[in-house]
């Protein structure tokens, strides 16, 4: 293989789109690195659920970064938003849950404890989310592999910040279930700004996606931007709501078990 032809990370190339598989070795190395870090640092023998969480979370990361979605992220704002949803909203809770058994045994780290507070978590996630949706930032970073990698890593970091207060080990002063549900709901609110700009903007927001070679003639830049904005709220928010629902049902089950365990005379 011609060394110069190797593309390590998906980025906007400006070349016409073709449904031809392409290799992105940097993505594979990154995904393998996640698996190695999990198995060497965070894996606790016997925790099969954690293993499944890790596999699913890493699978989502891979799906977001590799061909075709990763490559389409250089052509379509909607695909770029799909990557955001997977990297910032869907994968992080699974990866954090996968690491939780190990973190419950390890010494408490003050930085992680600080990040479990809702205010810094809210600030970090929304700063990342808003900055990485500014047109100048997207147009400047996405055409380069390093820039695209920075956006992807920022989304993952933002996603970890978003979910950490709700799924951290209890020793990190994880939010109580009612607070966690409220906190997660509030986290979905600021995304309405970029989503609204995408859906209701008179003209396409991103130069990159306005002028990119079309993937299909049916998907004009205007439709593409509108779909991106809708995905952000119609798919992105429900993922967080699913997290809220899981917390609710786990809380309800815990309460029921506690009630059943309590002798009736003491109620």
């Amino acid at each position: 293989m011609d060394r110069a032809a190797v593309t390590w990370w998906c980025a906007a190339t400006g070349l016409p789109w073709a449904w031809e598989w392409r290799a992105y070795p940097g993505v594979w190395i990154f995904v393998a690195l996640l698996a190695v870090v999990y198995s060497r640092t965070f894996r606790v023998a016997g925790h099969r659920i954690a293993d499944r969480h890790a596999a699913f979370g890493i699978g989502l990361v891979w799906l977001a970064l590799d061909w075709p979605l990763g490559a389409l992220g250089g052509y379509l704002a909607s695909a770029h938003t799909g990557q955001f949803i997977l990297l910032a909203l869907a994968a992080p809770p699974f990866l954090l849950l996968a690491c939780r058994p190990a973190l419950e045994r390890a010494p408490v780290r003050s930085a992680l404890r600080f990040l479990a507070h809702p205010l810094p978590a809210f600030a970090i996630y929304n700063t990342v989310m808003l900055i990485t949706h500014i047109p100048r930032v997207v147009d400047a970073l996405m055409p380069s592999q390093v820039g695209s990698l920075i956006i992807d890593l920022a989304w993952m970091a933002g996603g970890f910040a978003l979910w950490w207060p709700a799924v951290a080990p209890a020793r990190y002063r994880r939010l109580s279930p009612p607070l966690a549900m409220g906190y997660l709901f509030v986290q979905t609110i600021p995304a309405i700004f970029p989503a609204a700009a995408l859906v209701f903007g008179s003209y396409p927001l991103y130069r990159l996606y306005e002028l990119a070679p079309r993937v299909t003639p049916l998907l004009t830049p205007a439709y593409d931007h509108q779909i991106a904005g809708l995905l952000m709220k119609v798919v992105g928010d429900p993922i967080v709501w699913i997290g809220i629902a899981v917390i609710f049902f786990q809380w309800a089950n815990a309460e029921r078990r506690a009630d059943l365990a309590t002798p009736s005379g003491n109620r």
Partner: protein
Amino acid sequence: MVVVVLVASLGCSEAAPTPDLAGALLPKASPRPAFTLTALDGSRFDFEERTRGRLTLLFFGYANCPDVCPATMANLGAVMNKLTSQDRRQIDVVFVTTDPDRDTRDRLAEWLGRFDRETVGLSGSADELAQAQRAAGVGVAVRDSSAGRYTVSHAAQVLVYSPDDSSHIAYPFGTRQAQWAADIPVLLRRWTGPR
């Protein structure tokens, strides 16, 4: 596949940006070109005569173009469709194919219709098309036949002819919808002086 965009002999590289317009001002105004091609309904279309005194946006390209043409025509079409009917009536968007073999009238009508149904599509023989490009002052498109599904290298800028029947400004590839939307009302009212 990479479409190599020919540097137009209009000399866009020498053109200066205008302070209030996104296009590049030409160092010297050029007259509205004279050429006659075939419209999509089969009639002959005398460009100079039919567009005289009107704001005219002229673009050379082809329907199978993988990058520049669909982006340019989509952006122009999106803006044309948002203009007031009064402004839209004062503008001609003319698309001249550089790939007459594949751009049949039906194919061109279908393709242009995706963007703006009022766009005038023109075709002709290879000689006629070459003459039209020379008259407009752009490099003559070249077919890249190295691949099975060939591409065509062609001028990528949109040539703008003002109501004074001269071209003072050209818009390079990369002009955005918002820029067109801001500039078209200005273009309609500027360079309207005596011809």
